[in-house]
């Protein structure tokens, strides 16, 4: 070995940067290896962070002291809180990024991170011990570097193949070489690999867009930051334009549909349904007259514009024609055409909930390599993998892995979905995936996760101190509101009509009445005006959702009971009696970590679960 580290992270994308930073925050001597140091933090596709559910993930990353929220707060040029008109549980922050500023912010944060070394190198292979334990990596330039744990976050690079019309060529992203050696390594480890597809639209020269006639969408004023630590956004803000496809656009696509690799059969892998190419939209929703196109500037001093909504892999000349048929884009100069990319991913059911590969101890996978799509999904996994890699390298027991569950956060929902159910299409987060959605809000990500992070040791002192202060203020204000009570008569005198049942209601209880606002409460109890706004907001949400949250708390207790029963890694399902062949196969593929996870596998029966439970209890007894 030429060198040796506690943790090596391969890939400097969104998963890799979070993994490397998290491992380093944990105190592990960490090395980040990536093709090019200049592209660390590069946004391969849409220059935007957040959105519904994805924004929740970013807040969760921040709650665990990750990079992404702080970086977008520095690099964001248009912030919007989506679903502002709906309730707090389904509000999601989103920001348009200046691609360069964002990348710069990520690189700055990494540079400031202690214990972290970054080298440019292509990793070709893993070094395995006799028992399949991963103990290091080999680079293309011939170096062998030892590690206590390795995190692979190679994104779309594994045997990446770009499609542009009838042309195809191997690549990781446009103008970047694919990673071929690692796919072979993963195959050698006998991991199940699959293939997925994604795509990106052309890039336009914003100076040649006719903005005058277009609808413009400004950001929120003032912009709301992502990070719990950011006070306010200081980067200048811009607006995005909105335009629409036309009849002519649709006609051009229909006339050329046979030249789209998706329709000619050239691509057979599955793409994301929620991110359809424009040709998909026209074919599947033939009666829709027009489709929205958002024109999103890629930077403050960069003329490049990302036309969000017309991702395509049609040949360049067809893209040319269809783009020019869109209002505002008649004269536009196309900087580079859109394309589709196919890549290998590892069936995430090969992983433990810590994101460690079951068949290769010491190897962790995070990001697009696990079948997900999106920066936020990648970053959240990276963070969890980084923490666990550091824990493993430090000699911690696997039972003490850092595994947030479905009631802790969206990152728990995502990882559980991946490792127990696998995925058939690129996996993206939606709020509808979370059964405890009312609890898993963007506004309380810190309350949910920062304490867990503190316990694991991934939170910096500065954040821990800020968090503890906030929580104390909250507890104090809550206690105060519970102590302030009034009778129905007193409330009626203040213009608030509740049941005249003589029962005293606390200031907190009153939030369950839709008409009650802070203003109402402040008239009744002027002393409440002292509560700081961030704390006040939390209390209002708690009060409003109280009835529903109580029910969810009961559900969560039941859910956690099932999660409490872990199934051993080496459980041989062939030896469990009274399982049908089908269920045996499902269990063998998924290797659920807990009884609860087993129950979530579609087609599982109560009888099978009972048999499983019995088997495990017996094993534990005979082991004792």
């Amino acid at each position, binding site marked *: 070995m030429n060198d040796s580290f506690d943790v090596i992270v391969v890939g400097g994308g969104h998963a890799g940067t979070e993994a490397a930073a998290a491992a380093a925050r944990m105190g592990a001597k960490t090395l980040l290896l990536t093709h090019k140091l200049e592209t660390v933090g590069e946004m391969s596709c*849409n220059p935007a962070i957040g959105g*519904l*559910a994805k924004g929740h993930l970013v807040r969760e990353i921040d709650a665990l002291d990750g990079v992404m929220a702080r970086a977008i707060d520095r690099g964001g040029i248009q912030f919007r809180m*989506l*679903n502002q008109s*709906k*309730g707090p*549980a*389904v509000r*999601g922050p989103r920001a348009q990024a200046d691609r360069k500023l964002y990348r710069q912010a990520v690189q700055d944060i990494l540079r400031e991170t202690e214990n972290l070394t970054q080298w440019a190198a292509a990793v070709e292979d893993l070094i395995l011990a006799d028992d399949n334990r991963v103990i290091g990596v080999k680079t293309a330039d011939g170096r062998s570097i030892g590690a206590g744990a390795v995190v692979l976050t190679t994104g779309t690079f594994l045997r990446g193949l770009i499609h542009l019309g009838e042309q195809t060529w191997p690549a990781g992203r446009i103008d970047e070489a694919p990673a071929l050696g690692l796919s072979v390594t993963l195959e050698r480890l006998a991991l199940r690999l699959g293939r997925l597809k994604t795509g990106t639209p052309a890039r336009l020269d914003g100076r040649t867009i006719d903005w005058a006639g277009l609808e413009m969408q400004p950001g929120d004023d003032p912009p709301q930051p992502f990070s719990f630590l950011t006070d306010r956004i200081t980067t200048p803000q811009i607006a995005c334009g909105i335009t629409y496809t036309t009849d002519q656009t649709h006609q051009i696509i229909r006339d050329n549909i046979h030249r789209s690799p998706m329709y000619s059969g050239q691509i057979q892998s599955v793409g*994301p*349904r*929620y*991110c*359809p190419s424009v040709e998909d*939209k026209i074919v*599947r*929703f033939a009666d*829709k007259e027009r*489709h*929205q196109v*958002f024109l999103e500037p890629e930077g403050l001093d960069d003329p490049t514009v990302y036309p*969000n*909504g017309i*991702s395509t892999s049609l040949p360049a000349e067809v893209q040319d024609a269809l783009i020019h048929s869109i209002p505002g884009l008649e004269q536009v100069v196309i900087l580079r055409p859109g394309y589709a990319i196919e890549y290998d991913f590892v069936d995430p059911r090969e992983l433990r909930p810590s994101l460690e590969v079951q068949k290769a101890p010491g190897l962790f996978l995070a990001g697009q390599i696990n079948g997900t799509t999106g920066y936020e999904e990648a970053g959240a996994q990276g963070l969890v993998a980084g923490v666990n890699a550091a824990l493993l390298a430090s000699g911690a027991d696997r039972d003490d892995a850092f595994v947030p569950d479905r009631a802790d956060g969206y990152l728990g929902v995502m990882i559980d979905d991946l490792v127990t159910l696998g995925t058939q299409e690129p996996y993206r987060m*939606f*709020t*509808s*995936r979370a*059964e405890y*959605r*009312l609890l898993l809000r963007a506004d309380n990500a810190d309350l949910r996760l920062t304490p867990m992070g503190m316990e694991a040791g991934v939170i910096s002192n500065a954040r821990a101190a800020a968090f503890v202060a906030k929580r104390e203020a909250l507890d104090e204000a809550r206690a105060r509101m519970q102590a302030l009570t009034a009778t129905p008569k007193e409330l009626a005198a203040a213009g608030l009509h509740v049941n005249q049942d003589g029962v005293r209601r606390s200031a907190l209880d009153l939030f369950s009445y*839709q008409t009650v606002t802070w203003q109402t409460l402040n008239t009744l109890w002027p002393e409440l005006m002292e509560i700081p706004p961030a704390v006040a907001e939390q209390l209002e949400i708690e009060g409003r*959702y109280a009835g*529903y949250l109580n029910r969810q708390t*009961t559900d969560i*207790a039941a859910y956690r009971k099932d999660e409490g029963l872990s199934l051993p890694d080496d459980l041989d399902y062939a030896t469990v*009696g*009274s399982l049908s062949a089908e269920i045996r196969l499902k269990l063998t593929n998924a290797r659920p970590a807990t009884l609860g996870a087993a129950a979530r596998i*579609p*087609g599982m*029966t*109560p*009888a*099978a*679960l*009972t*048999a499983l*439970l*019995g*088997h495990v*209890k*017996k094993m534990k007894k005979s082991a004792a």
Partner: protein
Amino acid sequence: MSRPETIFALATAPGRAGVAVIRISGPQAGAALQALCGKLPKPRQAARVRFCDPLGGQPLDDGLALWFPAPGSFTGEDVAELQGHGGKAVIDSLLSALCTLPGLRPAEPGEFTRRAFENGKLDLTQAEGLADLINAETEAQHRQALRQMDGALARLFDGWRSDLIRHLAHLEAFIDFPDEPIPDHLDQAVRAGISALAGAMSAHLADGHRGERIRDGLYIAVVGAPNAGKSSLVNALARREAAIVSAAAGTTRDVIEVHLDLGGYPVILADTAGLREAAEEVEAEGIRRALQRAENADLRLAVFDAGLAPGWDQTTLALIDDRTEVILNKTETTSLPEDLRIAGRRPHRISAAGGQGMAGLLAALTDRVRSLLETQGAPALTRQRHRVALEECVESLQRSLTAPDLELMAEDLRLAARALGRITGRVEVDDLLDVIFRDFCIGK
């Protein structure tokens, strides 16, 4: 920590059996036992009891009750065991009665075993044996049971399921894709759909009164002219000891009611006053009531005196319809042609006094009662659970309509979907996503 709910279920295989065992487990088990038998037996000792309806007080069955206080029980919780007659009607009435008690609900498949495990009460061999038993109640079999119900009913439930998924998916699309041009009126459309769905489910729950009939007994009125032999028919039927559950003399002079168990179903046989021209006012009132009973009965037995052929009693003839079985009594007194018809029907020929034809009549009646009361296929326990689940579903749907926020509305719909899923199989997130991506062009 919330207190565990108290659960109950039929522990013996559903269907007709000599003895049916119902198990109750959880903190309310003792209270339930007391509510049903009026007392708590000595721990671990079988006691002969009469099970009565906790609400109305009417007797449901005679049997044995056992009481196993925690932790010395099968599940490690307080457990009560009711052993009753194996008849379907009896089981159903006991299960219905338990449903009405606070804090009790039908057990989910495997739940007893589950609790037993959690409290360290089972070893592996027991578990495997039980697993087979529980297998009969798996989700897949739920669906199968649903398919086995008559086609219309299965279509109904499947339709509800897809409606509910669609409404929820549309709402979720509205929530998860705020930048997408999803029509504004969608919200209204979803609301209208939900209230229609809740309405349809409520109507179904209220429908058929089958459940009540099973609980209270199918009402059969015996009508006919005086001396046609009504009373001897009722007596003859009641005299078949095996069938008797209880006999109580009527409290009014005009109707005598006899409780019978026909093929496991509870039946109330009402011997009405003879239909004839009333001599006095009191009797006229009696006849009026008799006619009213006959009118409201689930089934009528119209009794004719063979000796009076063909001068059939007109008032009785007027009562014959689809819900009527025509009976020709005293056939031993005359010989009438084989193909004799009364009001177009072939009568059951019997001699209530001599006993001829009674076995045949009893069999025919039992078939008729079964066809009226039986919901095809689905065992009683499953039906009971379906009802509870459906009620929960309706409740959630209704609450969703008054929810102040869209996400709370969605939350209620998710609860509704979960309740319905207990009948039709779980609604997975993928089901929702499928609808979202099918119905909306979403994504950039």
